[in-house]
């Protein structure tokens, strides 16, 4: 019952968050220098053409009127029409979103697969060569920009060794796993470095905890101690970090999708910004906000499952 109440509370809290996000999106987009009518019409258009486009887009209306229209339309599921793509914003986003979600889930999965076992290995071998080697390698991953890692992987694994395609998305599920392997690894290398460091520190802290020493003194097998006591408790802070990393990962798709020619919403966002496509920028930012909020909600719920004290507080 407490769990359901907690879930409902968290969901209600998302409403003011979305409202605030919408206000910020609306104002930020309009604070961008440059006239969207000029961006649409092109440099060669006449002043009369520019004025006509401003009128057509409703940009001459007062700011408050524009916001009210944006708010009411959004609540009815109408995100407007993309200026750049000449199609409804919702359709444009829905066509590209599955690609980005696929890439994000793939990258997070790889991050966990990489970070989890290595964090354990490093923690249980604290101070030994295995620990030092793992930390040194991940330090390199952390210190290199994502686009650079991407280009290095592309050059060696795709262009020279021809092990993977240079870019693209693929047709079937397996084909997509193959096509998106390099972009997912690129993102995962950075995310897993952060996760690994945190998880390693958490495991070391839990390993020193009295309840773990008590379990050892009781003669419980190591596998049981690590699985039931150490992992579950060490994961609490790492789950928070993972949730935050997914938010960061969504913004990272702007770079990754461009370098690897992946047709997702990250690349779409870049195109929309350069074209001053207000409706599309607003729709995409809102989509990112909803996705990140949902990830945070899931993170909170998972944490409360791991640590029931959170529900009571």
């Amino acid at each position, binding site marked *: 019952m407490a769990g359901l109440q907690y879930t409902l509370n968290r969901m209600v809290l998302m409403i003011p968050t979305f409202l605030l996000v919408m206000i910020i999106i609306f104002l930020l987009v309009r604070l961008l220098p*440059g006239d969207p009518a000029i961006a649409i019409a*092109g440099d*060669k258009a006449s002043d009369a053409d520019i004025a006509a486009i401003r009128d057509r887009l409703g940009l001459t209306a007062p700011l408050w009127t524009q916001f009210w229209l944006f708010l009411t339309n959004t609540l009815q599921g109408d995100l407007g029409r993309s200026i750049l793509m000449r199609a409804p914003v919702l359709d444009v986003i829905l066509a590209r979103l599955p690609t980005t979600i696929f890439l994000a889930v793939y990258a997070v999965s790889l991050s966990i697969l990489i970070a989890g076992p290595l964090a354990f290995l490093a923690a249980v071998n604290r101070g030994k060569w295995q620990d030092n080697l793992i930390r040194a390698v991940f330090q390199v991953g952390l210190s290199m920009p994502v686009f650079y890692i991407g280009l290095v992987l592309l050059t060696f694994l795709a262009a020279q060794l021809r092990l993977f395609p240079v*870019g693209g998305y693929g047709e079937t599920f397996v084909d997509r796993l193959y096509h998106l392997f390099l972009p997912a690894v690129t993102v995962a290398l950075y995310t897993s470095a952060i996760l690994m460091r945190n998880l390693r520190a958490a495991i070391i802290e839990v390993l020193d905890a009295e309840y773990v020493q008590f379990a050892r003194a009781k003669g419980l097998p190591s596998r049981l101690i690590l699985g039931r006591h150490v992992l579950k408790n060490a994961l609490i802070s790492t789950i928070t970090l993972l949730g935050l990393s997914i938010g960061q990962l969504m913004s990272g798709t702007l770079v990754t999708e461009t*370098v690897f020619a992946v*047709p997702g919403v990250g690349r*779409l966002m870049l195109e929309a910004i*350069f074209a001053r496509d207000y409706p599309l920028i607003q729709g995409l930012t809102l989509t990112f906000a909803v996705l990140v909020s949902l990830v945070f909600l899931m993170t909170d719920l998972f944490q409360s499952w791991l640590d029931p004290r959170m529900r009571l507080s």
Partner: protein
Amino acid sequence: MKAAALAIGLAMSTALGAYTIGTADAVERGGTLNFARYDGSKLVDPIYADRNPDIWMVGSLFSTLLEPNADGTDLVGSLAESYEVSAGGKTISLVLREGAKFSDGSPVTGEDVVFSLERARNPDLGPWAGLLSAISSVAADGRNITITLENPDPALLSMLATFNTAIVSKKAFDAAPGATDQEKSAALFAKGGPGVGSGPFFLSGFEQGTSMTFSANPHYWKQGEDGKPLPYLDKVEFQIIPDDATRVLKLTAGEVDVAEFIPFSRVAELDADPAINMNLYPSTRIIYSPINTRETRADGSPNPLADKRVRQAINYATNKDALIGLVLQGAGKPMSSPVMSSSTRLAVDMSPLYGYDMDKAKALIAEAGLEPGTEITLTTLAGSADDGTIFAALQQMWAPLGITLVAEQVDGATRGAKNRSGEFDIHTYGWVDDVADPSQVTGWLGYYPTRKAVGTGWNNADFNVLYEASSSEMDPEKRADQYRQMQEIYAEAAPLLFMYETPFAVAVSGKVSGYLQTPLGNNVFENVSLGQ
């Protein structure tokens, strides 16, 4: 020196490539050409195409009535097999090609031509209607088309060979969903095919921002070298890859056959690859910088660039060859006409146009009485490596004149807004002709009523009168003379920093023959064939 040698070498390899294409013994038919583009098409409709990625694809899907001949010096029939201009220049009569068909097998009729040209000249529809403003009516009688003009227009025949007058199927438009022309056009393209084309291909696939597919029009009227209908290819698949490095990697990995917009820093490396033909196609693209010529800046302060002598001085102090070496690795040439590329018709070769002469520059600055340490702002595109290089070079080149050049980095939309409002000193800019006539670029750069002479505020009565007169002058010699005078006036006034012309750098796999990018930028696939 090395850069110059490279440029010459590449020019020769391009020329040799063209020769090889022309003398191929046997052309292989079939296959799919994979083409990596820097940006995707949004709507390839003759009248709504307003971005280069759209404009440059129109010709593959829709043919025009006329087209430029092989060397671009004259016009020949395309969907029209013949044409004739009346003595006064106010009537153009054309005869439609017998047997010309759309890709769905239906005939190209006079009704389609009237429909297409009426759309093209409707000012409530596309942005290019102004190019056809001289037309008063279009009529068809069977295969005979009559275009009547309100006043003679020397550019009109060129317009009939331009993308916006390409012929579309009235039947396909009428059947398309949507209440308005815009909705019908968008619906036809968004569906992703099968489109109904009058060109060598028709649209057979489209995913916004991701890919696009053209399939061969089985009813195309042109014949190939083997006596069978063009095109040789079955399909062209376009992939959208905005990142330069990824596009090049795709080509070198063999995943695509053609990669466009190769960064000039990679040209030499790709040219050395035996599996790739690195082509530098001559273009009408010019890179220049508009100079604000108004007496005062937007903030009300005196504008040192209002003085013609200062503008001339910075032009003399700019070493164009050095800029070409730094930015284009030698793959370009200084502008030789002040208002158009050297490949645009009626361009006057005035080279060296403000050849590097620091003594003359210093003398002009002294004569103008410019205070040492005068600050001038160069507005550049944020994130553009080329603009960064241009700024660093100009800062050093102009320092001996006592000019302190400062940079202001903005994005493209902001630069466009500043150009319109006159809130700039100098900013980087570029141009590619959309039509095969000098009127468009000349109007853009110099004719004040068009856009305040590319935002410079330069307003010269003699130039404006000449431009207006040239717009209805049907005598080719008189018109050429008017253009000569306009170029002389413009060069002397120097409302621009005259910089350089750049080619289109396209890397093509060795197995591909016959690909061409025209000086206007149009991608031509009808003669492309794939070898082993």
